[in-house]
């Protein structure tokens, strides 16, 4: 018999919340009908706290905390949209745009891109930081899919979905710092990596136009980020969502 975790109470933006003691702040924020932007987080995958967009201010905590990996505690008083947080979020989105080569007008994901959505959400229409125009490449070696590194934001959703849900672990993060890139196999062309089952989950969960189906043209990508949570639930709890 499973025992339900105890319930804790607190405040988010002045609003009272009650939640299971093992809930994350992000779950609580969303359950309360509130919103913080996220990019690396995806329900169904292990959270990594890397994009820093979901940082919130908790009274009594000296540092800002990522909502996706922070567990609620009794009496927590949380603020999701202080002026400081809004400034930092906008800067973070600017840094994302400046570090890659994101040209919405020509992108397969135009209109269904989470980076674009977040930019709208935080009110960013241009980057005040100089664009870096990095020299990256496009891997079109796979028969069905392509990876355009120019549009990759290193959220590692593809790495996690392939490892945790598909179990193939085709992807990983290679190199380090600003030279980091998503690699397949021994940093080989994707199409040469025998471990790939061509399941397409990485394409489904990619928040931008970095991973896409070859038949998709500009603004034609239709991602399915919800599948990660559905598959995780089916796999771990034997519950199937029938859309």
């Amino acid at each position, binding site marked *: 018999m499973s025992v339900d975790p105890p319930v804790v109470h607190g405040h988010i933006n002045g609003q009272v919340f009650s939640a299971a003691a093992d809930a994350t702040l992000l779950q609580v924020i969303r359950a309360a009908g509130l919103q913080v932007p996220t990019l690396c987080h995806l329900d169904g995958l292990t959270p*990594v*706290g*890397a*994009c*820093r967009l979901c*940082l919130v201010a908790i009274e009594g905590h000296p*540092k*800002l905390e*990522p909502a996706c*990996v922070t567990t609620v505690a009794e009496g927590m008083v949380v603020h999701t949209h202080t002026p*400081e947080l809004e*400034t*930092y979020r906008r*800067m*973070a989105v600017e*840094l*994302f745009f*400046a*570090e890659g080569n994101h040209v919405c007008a020509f992108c397969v994901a135009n209109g269904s891109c989470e980076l674009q959505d977040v930019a709208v959400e935080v009110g960013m229409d241009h980057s*005040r*930081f*100089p664009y*870096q125009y990095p020299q990256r490449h496009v891997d079109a070696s796979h028969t069905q899919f392509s990876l355009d590194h120019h549009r990759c*934001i*290193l959220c590692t959703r593809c790495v996690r979905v392939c490892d945790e849900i598909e179990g193939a672990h085709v992807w990983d*993060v290679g*190199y*380090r*710092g*600003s*030279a*980091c890139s998503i690699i397949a196999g021994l940093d080989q062309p994707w199409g040469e990596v025998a471990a790939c089952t061509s399941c397409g989950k990485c394409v489904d969960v990619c928040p931008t136009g970095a991973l896409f189906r070859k038949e998709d043209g500009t603004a034609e990508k239709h991602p399915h980020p919800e599948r990660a949570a559905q598959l995780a639930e089916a796999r771990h709890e034997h519950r199937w969502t029938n859309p």
Partner: protein
Amino acid sequence: MAVSWRCCDATACRAAGAAALRQRLEAEVGAERVKPVGCLRLCGQAPLAAADHPDGSTELVAGVAGERRLDLDHPFFALQRPVVLERCGLVDPSSIDDALAQGAYATLAACRLRRAAELVEEVVRSGLRGRGGAGYPTGRKWQLVAAQSGAHKVVVCNADEGDPGAFMDRSVMEGDPHRLLEGMAIAAQAVGAAEAYIYVRAEYPLAIERLRTAIAAATERGVLAGLPIQLRIGAGAYVCGEETALLHSIEGGRGTPRPRPPYPAVSGLWGLPTLINNVETFAAIPAILREGGDWYAAMGTAGSKGTKVFALSGAITHTGLIEVEMGTSLRTIVEAMGGGGSGVVKAVQTGGPSGGCIPAELLDTPVDYASLQELGSIMGSGGMVVIDAAMAMPELARYFMRFCVAESCGKCLPCRAGTVQLEQLLDRFVEKRASPADLAQLEQLCGMVKATSLCGLGQSAPNPVLSTLRFFRAEYEAALAPGVVP
């Protein structure tokens, strides 16, 4: 009785011709009267050798021919308070017999007769704080790990001394490796750990060799109270000095940090409760348990007890290794011990890429955790680099930012992309083509990277910029493009 010689056989002296000096001395007095030892402190004069005369007097000479006689009454030596370094320079680091003869493992043997909780209590009373940089109370950390219920716990030594300008831990490992092993074995007994790891950076080949020798000898003699200690070698990643990144690296993975909690004390190596301390912290333990926590706490200041080892380098007359009581003023260290700057002293940089610059007019600042933090720097691991007037501060800030760009692991956005932008902003100041808007953006981005990065590397990367902006803002303003008025 004839004279016996102790020849420094540590990295710095080796680089300066220690082998030639030793050969010369061996030819003079016979090999049996010359023994290799660890750091003799005044690295800038290397190679060094100390002569112990039959009448009990000691003299120190320098140079490949031993041609320079050094004054042991100079404040550089006289003001030292060796605790961590008490055997460094006296003991042959490759000889367990010599270490045992000088008291190694005696404290561990005595500790085995005491209750674990007593040992933890002694460390709490000592007021010792982590010497790796963050300054977390060591005793509290031990209490946390000791309180974990798991049967399988691990002790890890962080020997990934990566701050540029820091060589305290290297000196301990090269000069008195058994002290580190003894400290770890005491810690393992206190917290109930059954195995231990030392994660040492690959850039320290001699320290690795000495540790290997020491572990093998100590294990063979059975003096480690049955604790297996394994060496794990880094592969060139500064970020592995961050504890969660270090654990990932020991596990064999990419050295990327993860959000805490859970803290390693609860879930560390392979998910096991893990005690992580750095080299100097463990090396202070045998003396604390031997003399008592109160003895240690009697040294230093209210918030910073005991002694601290510093690596003194840069534009200063006497460079080398010093151990002083906490609370000693920077002026004492730089002017009395270091003999003043080789040029006009402009600032002292402490804490490496995570720290800041203390300007010359504040040299009376006592060296303790709180005072340095108040000035926007940190104690850090103990690197102390003297900066002279020839160095422009925006350039120094850019040097540290370049370091952080090269060492960022790339996991979180603010550190990966923010440091790159900060370096480019600093370029504009170094090249005197910045605008007032650049200055505003520099400060704002520093604030963002500091507040939002995932781990200590990113959170502290802006510190050298912020601290030089605080004390040397005029240099940044002077670097604005000609014709621009701030």
